[in-house]
């Protein structure tokens, strides 16, 4: 069983246009690695060169921000949904 990842429209071109992809991962860190391996360029949009999560991108596991869980060590269970939410400013 895999984890569902919801991709915002800005990043969909990097994921073959898909809004939702399935990834095999046991925690957020391995999820980002798996996303990056399957969709080149995606990892760089989520992480700073230093490896920190970019401060204008939020990752939610189900309804909770990983900053208030165990950050990138947050464990994932099969069937979890991870949502990438970028800051947007259109009005």
């Amino acid at each position: 069983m895999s984890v569902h990842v919801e991709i915002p429209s800005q990043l969909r071109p990097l994921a073959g246009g898909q809004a939702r992809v399935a990834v095999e991962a046991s925690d957020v860190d391995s999820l980002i690695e798996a996303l990056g391996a399957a969709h080149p360029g995606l990892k760089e949009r989520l992480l700073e060169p230093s490896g920190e999560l970019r401060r204008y991108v939020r990752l939610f596991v189900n309804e909770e921000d990983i900053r208030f869980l165990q950050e990138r060590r947050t464990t994932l269970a099969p069937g979890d949904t991870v949502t990438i939410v970028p800051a947007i400013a259109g009005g």
Partner: protein
Amino acid sequence: MASFKELIRKVKGEIREAGVAEARAAQQRGAVLLDVREADEWAQGHVPGAVFIPRGFLEQRVEAEVPGKQGEVFVYCAGGTRSAFAARTLLDLGYSNVTSIAGGFGKWKEAGFPVEVPRTLSPEQKQRYSRHLLVPEIGAAGQDTLLRSKVLLVGAGGLGSPAGFYLAAAGVGTLGLVDSDVVDVSNLQRQILHTNQSVGKAKTASGAATLGALNPDVTVVEHQLRLDSSNVLEVIAPYDVIVDGCDNFATKYLVNDAAVLTGKTVVYGSIFRFEGQASVFKPGAGPCYRCLFPEPTPSELAPSCDEAGVLGVLPGTVGLIQASETLKLLLGIGRPLVGRLLTYDALEQSFREFRVRRDPGCALCGDNPTIRELEDLAWSCHFEPRPVHA
């Protein structure tokens, strides 16, 4: 068959009565005062803080409006007769601590106790807002609140248009419009405050004309300027709630910072192509925008609607969520989007909700804030600085 005189004597024998002085003392220690007169009597003056339920609706409404049947309830009418019958009814409904005020509102006024005279709605307003007046959570008092309320719309564009339309229709008495831009024909695909006739005119003037035509009760204040650190505090000062419908990060962070520093609530909205976000940032009650996104997306990754395109109807959906949240905040009803980020995807036609917490490390509202005064965010983008518009 009992006559009226026999009936009132019987009822008064079954209830407790007290004078206005006792009632006032009871109210000061937390007792409910219940006014069972008719709406026109209430409108001419009533006891401040009293609950108003005309006697004809008493049985239907009292349990919702006066919960807790053990609490002290003092009922009044004009002179003490209708309140005696109402008190008898409350006993039947299980209220155990009910008193009818002898002499009623007449004696209350004679005693020189405080009286509140609500601003009454004109006959035209009663018609215009009749569908609000029918809703118990709004009613005449709520409508009066809306008419006295002041809301600032930052951006008279995609989000500000639908929000402005519905807030004006709802009778929010003062709407401020902030925008420095003029209407371009490419705006009309989504910025429905403006028309072909307003192309080339200031968005603030165009918006004010549209909203004024919709509802003459609304005073529209035109702020034809771009918000910056030198003017933002003065612009937002008169307003109860700020609706963030701007289209750039510099203004979003500036409005957020100014609102946190002055304790004002921001109803946030943002859109990108097919996706929208909405939340309510209420200082002291939940996180701020910086708690959610400590830094803005670099502009090359987050182009504005003008640069990236947007589904024309998308700001309608998001702007109306902002309008709903604004009315709820003004009326003090419902569960606002405080601490919750609502996201909308028009392609999937789905909403998601995420928990957003105040970040103890937030530079603005955290435990050890480093931002103590306003600063303008650099327009570090490859686009020329553009005026605030949406």
